[in-house]
């Protein structure tokens, strides 16, 4: 299924897409060398990796399986709180926290997936929102463990095999390594039989069932696959910021994650990465606009959806009819064609 590369000198496994991916990876690896001593910029890049993990997970749930998960930030929060409590209370090493966060969020995903099996897509998004709100309520009121609105400060630095990750450069490469592992893993999964089943469910559930796909099993699987990276991202944010508070994981955060995935392009893992990088980077770029920032972001979201409804990397087929693309094309043809070649009365879309 992999097409032959355009560069015959390269080994066989380097297809065009993988070539671009490796190129991007190479750029990302050498990037810190050009940034110099800007701590803030390195921190933003670390945040991009964390958000990329979240977006990758949500892409599996929403982009590949078509389930509108509007409570993704709650799984992120579960991961963060598990990591923080394990590190602060039980003095566990980072890797234990990371595994526990991923497992905890995955377990939560498994539990949430079960009521979600019964309902259609919009009711599903309401259930996930309800779950996220319940998570907020529990976190804000379970004083013994989460310290409620005060949050959990003082999470120690990451230590792996006697190496302390106490500066952004080390964290950057650690986060990059984790992101690459998860990306490659998810990419293999979505390009396998599992991924094709998920896409079939997204495109037509009844048809998928008729093809012999176990819809219930694959929906639960998608939820688990999508929430594990969210839990891992939670552990990373806990150790990066060294503080965990409930406000990081509210509904706004879930909506922003949904935005990343949709603007990046549903059904495309690179789209999730681009969406995350775009959103985090863009938020920092227009920070100087102060209170106009959210409005400018809204205008850009609207314009992007009107002119490119499928998102940056998504496929046109998924977006359906609509958007201004056809309007612009028709206007362009009208202006740049002589009356003789102008098509007579084109049929509507």
């Amino acid at each position, binding site marked *: 299924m992999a097409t032959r590369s355009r560069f015959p000198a390269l080994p066989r496994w380097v297809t065009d897409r993988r070539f671009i991916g490796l190129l991007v990876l190479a750029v990302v690896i050498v990037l810190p060398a050009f940034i110099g001593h800007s701590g803030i910029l390195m921190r933003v890049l670390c945040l991009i990796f964390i958000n990329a993990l979240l977006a990758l997970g949500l892409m599996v749930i929403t982009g590949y399986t078509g389930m*509108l998960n509007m409570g993704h930030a709650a799984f992120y929060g579960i991961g963060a709180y598990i990591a923080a409590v394990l590190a602060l209370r039980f003095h566990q090493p980072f890797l234990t926290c990371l595994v526990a966060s991923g497992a905890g969020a995955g377990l939560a995903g498994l539990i949430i997936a079960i*009521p979600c099996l*019964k*309902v*259609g897509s*919009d*009711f599903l*998004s*309401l*259930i996930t*929102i*309800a*779950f996220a*709100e*319940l998570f907020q*309520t*529990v976190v*804000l*009121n379970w004083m013994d463990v989460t310290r409620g609105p005060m949050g959990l400060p003082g999470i120690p630095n990451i230590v792996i095999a006697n190496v302390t990750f106490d500066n952004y450069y080390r964290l950057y490469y650690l986060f990059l390594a984790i992101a690459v592992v998860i990306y490659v893993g998810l990419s293999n999964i979505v390009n396998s039989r599992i991924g094709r089943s998920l896409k079939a469910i997204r495109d*037509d559930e*009844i*048809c998928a069932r*008729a093809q012999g796909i176990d819809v219930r099993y694959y929906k639960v699987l998608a939820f688990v696959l999508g929430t594990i990276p969210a839990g891992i991202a939670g552990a990373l944010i806990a150790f990066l910021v060294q503080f965990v508070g409930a406000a990081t994981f509210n*509904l*706004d955060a879930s*909506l922003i994650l949904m*935005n990343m995935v*949709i*603007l990046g392009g*549903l059904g495309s893992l690179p789209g999730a990465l681009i969406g995350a990088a775009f959103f985090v980077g863009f938020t920092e770029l227009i920070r100087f606009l102060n*209170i*106009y*920032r*959210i*409005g*400018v*972001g*809204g*205008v*850009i*979201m*609207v314009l992007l*959806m*009107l002119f490119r*409804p499928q998102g940056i990397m998504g496929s046109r087929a*998924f*977006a*359906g*009819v*609509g*958007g*201004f693309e056809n*309007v612009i094309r028709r206007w362009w043809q009208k202006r740049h064609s002589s009356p003789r070649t102008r098509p007579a009365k084109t049929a509507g879309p």
Partner: protein
Amino acid sequence: MGQSLQYFFQQLLNGLSIGSIYAMIAVGYSMVYSILYMINFAHGDIYIFGTFIAFALWKAGLPIPAVVVLACLAGALVGLVVERTVYRPVRFANRIVPMITALGVAMVLRTISQVIWGAETLPFLQLIPNTTISIGGLRIFSQQVLVVGTSLVCMVAFTLIIEKTKLGKATQCIMQDINLSRIMGIQVDTIIPLIYGLGGFMGVVGGILFASYYNAISINLGLLGTLKAWAAAMLGGVGSFYSPFLGGLILGVAEAMAGAYLGPAYKDAVGYLVIVAVLLFRPTGLFGKPRIEKV
């Protein structure tokens, strides 16, 4: 009447008042949803924008009836404009596309409100003087009578519009099949904006009652309103006109009871638990008709 029973009825009354406000906001939301199956994230911000306009008009010194009517018309106008500019171009695109444009519009409206009126909570006008009526030990506030009464009147008017007028019949046709309605000569592109406008109108009525009931207005009520409207619409189910109304009432009562007996911190959580519980047993909402999928 026993002390605890009296407390119960008092809370029931509070719940009914807040529930009928939710219902007002949910009705417009549910109308649009049942036609286009669109998750309208801008609904809450449209109604709170209209409520802010009411606030500005009140500050400008207009009499209260004029304030209410003008603000509701302004809300309807905002709904119309938003439909025309950002929903119609992507109406037949994947459902997720208008959802995101709605979210974008919500962010723009929120920013406009914030720039003009600031992010703080502001005191809102009192529609009628605050008095209490006592019936058998039960204290009823004049505000509660106003809220429940207005929403009942609006619901009856709304039902009459949908059931009796040509606009309402056209709307019902569009709900069944939008393309077939177009073939039958229904002006789909006129009816749908009108429904958005009607939703905005009802939303602002609800918003003014809400702000007047709590004597406060803030831009943060926008997203909250969207969520409550959505929750009420889904709880009631899609397919009939009274279902979002009943859904709003049930949500309001559930929240008031949770706030009274478990503590205010658990108010929202219990509301959502009720929704999840209902959806587990009735996946299409309490009064919803299942949407038949054809292959």
